[in-house]
């Protein structure tokens, strides 16, 4: 892709005359064959342009889309906050009067909210850390100048192209208690009984492993499947990071006599910090949004054992028609997301990346 770009840039002179031919008054400059490009520095010209003129000229391009998206994003969030201060049930029109924080105080004394909040944080932390670790490991493996690299990469990233609903359908079959893939595998090696026995002291009395119904395993099952789906993403990000590290760093470590493990631990992996940060931000956002996956995985099964704030919000607002309460849960989720992305965006801004 870079080649295409540079080739096109090389033909800039030709493009430029094509541009000026479109304009009726472009003749005098179109013939100079790119001399202007050489002599006029873009910087000095830019400084000579008044800011207001730049704003007026660029606004028609970015303002309409920004207003369009901004209405749906920020307008909707503000509206959502307003709704969370009412007691709107979702039937008829909302009454925007008597604003108070009763929905939030109700939330504080709601056990299912705390369960969902706890699950969200556990999912956020465990999923992100394991995903990064696995992604880094796979990226290092792929970086060993292997054959068929493209094939391996394509297959490792494939789960990410599938929708949450599709992967949830597949994993529902893997985790199915009666004759699911996992339980049949355990049965094959005569391990199922042993595992059930292991869990018996914890008050389990079932004959088979009920991955999605037991409190101890439900969230772990969700996390494992999400790692399956998204570790390929971490792999891609880390691979790009590894490829950006100059060869000399490997050679210097070698010359210093560092072992392979030491080289990676001391020299290479520390340089992947930026990749790790950006990957973990995106992974955490995936985790906060994992609604589709849990919704489809749980199917018609009741139970809050794998509830996260995202699924709780939907259940409260759209299944039991408590829109104001659902809005309040959504605001908590939004604040949680802000806590993740706020520092990230700020550091990107400080580094001049924005």
């Amino acid at each position: 892709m870079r080649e295409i770009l540079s080739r096109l840039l090389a033909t800039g002179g030709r493009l430029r005359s094509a541009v000026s031919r479109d304009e009726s008054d472009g003749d005098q400059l179109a013939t100079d064959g790119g001399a202007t490009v050489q002599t006029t520095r873009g910087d000095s010209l830019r400084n000579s342009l008044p800011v207001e003129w730049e704003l007026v000229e660029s606004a028609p391009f970015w303002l309409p889309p920004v207003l369009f998206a901004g209405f749906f994003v920020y307008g909707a969030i503000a509206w959502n906050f307003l709704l969370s201060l009412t007691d709107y049930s979702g039937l008829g029109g909302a009454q925007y009067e008597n604003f108070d924080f009763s929905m939030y105080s109700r939330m504080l004394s709601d056990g299912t909210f705390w369960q969902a909040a706890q699950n969200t944080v556990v999912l956020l932390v465990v999923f992100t850390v394991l995903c990064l670790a696995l992604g880094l490991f796979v990226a290092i493996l792929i970086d060993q100048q292997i054959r068929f690299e493209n094939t391996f990469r394509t297959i490792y990233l494939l789960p990410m192209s599938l929708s949450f609903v599709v992967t949830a359908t597949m994993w529902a079959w893997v985790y199915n208690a009666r004759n699911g893939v996992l339980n049949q595998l355990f049965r094959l090696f005569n391990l199922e009984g042993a595992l059930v026995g292991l869990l018996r002291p914890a008050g389990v009395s079932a004959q088979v492993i009920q991955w999605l119904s037991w409190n101890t395993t439900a969230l772990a099952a969700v996390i494992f499947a999400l790692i399956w789906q998204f570790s390929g993403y971490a792999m891609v990000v880390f691979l790009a990071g590894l490829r950006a590290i100059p060869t000399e760093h490997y050679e210097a470590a070698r010359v210093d006599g560092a072992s392979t493990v030491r080289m990676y631990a001391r020299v290479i992996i520390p340089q992947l910090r930026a990749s790790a940060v950006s990957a973990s931000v995106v992974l955490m956002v995936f985790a906060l949004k994992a609604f589709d996956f849990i919704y489809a995985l749980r199917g018609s099964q009741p139970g809050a054992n794998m509830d996260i704030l995202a699924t709780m919000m939907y259940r409260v607002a759209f299944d039991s028609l408590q829109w104001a309460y659902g809005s309040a849960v959504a605001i908590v989720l939004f604040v949680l997301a802000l806590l993740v992305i706020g520092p990230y965006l700020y550091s990107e801004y400080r580094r001049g990346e924005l």
Partner: protein
Amino acid sequence: MSTGDGGFLDGLRNTESSRIGLYALLLAGIAFYLFPVETAVMTMFKTESAFARTLPFAPPGADGFTLDALATAWNTLRPGLLNSLLMAIPATIMSALLGSLTAYGLTTLSWRGQVGVVVLIIAGIFIPYQAVLVPLAQFWFQVLPGIVEGFINTLFGFLTGGNWEYPSRNGYVQLLQLSVTHAAYGIPICTLLFRSYYQSISDEMIEAARLDGASAFSIYRNIILPLSLPMFAVTLIYQFTQVYNDLLFALVLINEPASQVATQRLAALTGGVVQSFNTTMAGAIVAALPTLLVYIVFGEQFAKGVAGE
């Protein structure tokens, strides 16, 4: 292969066993990432009797092979697939085009304060959609219909008799609403993708064109747009996958059974009380087909979109 750009087996590169170990790990990776898909494919071809006889990931065997489950799933999902495409394709094109325009306005024509706008846009990528769901439903089903009805009945009251109704019960209108919603929420990520790309285009070329008297639009039309075609490919592929795969917005915005999208129909198939796994697996494969095809054909571009390059 010998001049190392590093790698942890560099020192051992010539030893056969370490290479074998490496490939064994990589193959184990393939098994890990493919086994649910492989199981789904094997399961969808099985009859009920083969189901009991064989392991889930084993092939059905000659006498246990059937296409019934596939046919059932196909018939259930087909209208959903059409709706999904009808909704996702316009949404994808709209958000890519608008993202490209936004990125152009925010990079090549730079002005002080644009960083603030960029931060607001990028933050839009990361917001949890739950935080906008309730207002979204209210906007499409209450506020907008109210405004449009009032507008039309006031202006054309003599034609409508003053009781024209916004057709929000119409399935196609709901699909259109969903499509517009996806287009709006796709703008931030599309802007980000195009922006990093446009930053690599030389200022001088733009300035020269400007000196030649080219308008901002003609610079976009004649220089930027032709240059961005590869990026359009990346963005369209990535964004199509995202929109097609979504369930949440569809659940909230589409309640007409006839206009349900594929993910909705698959979720209903999966969540049903009676579960025959050969049908649900066939459903998963059928619903995944469009994005699987896109991924197999354009895998490289998809990876670029994922990595935000």
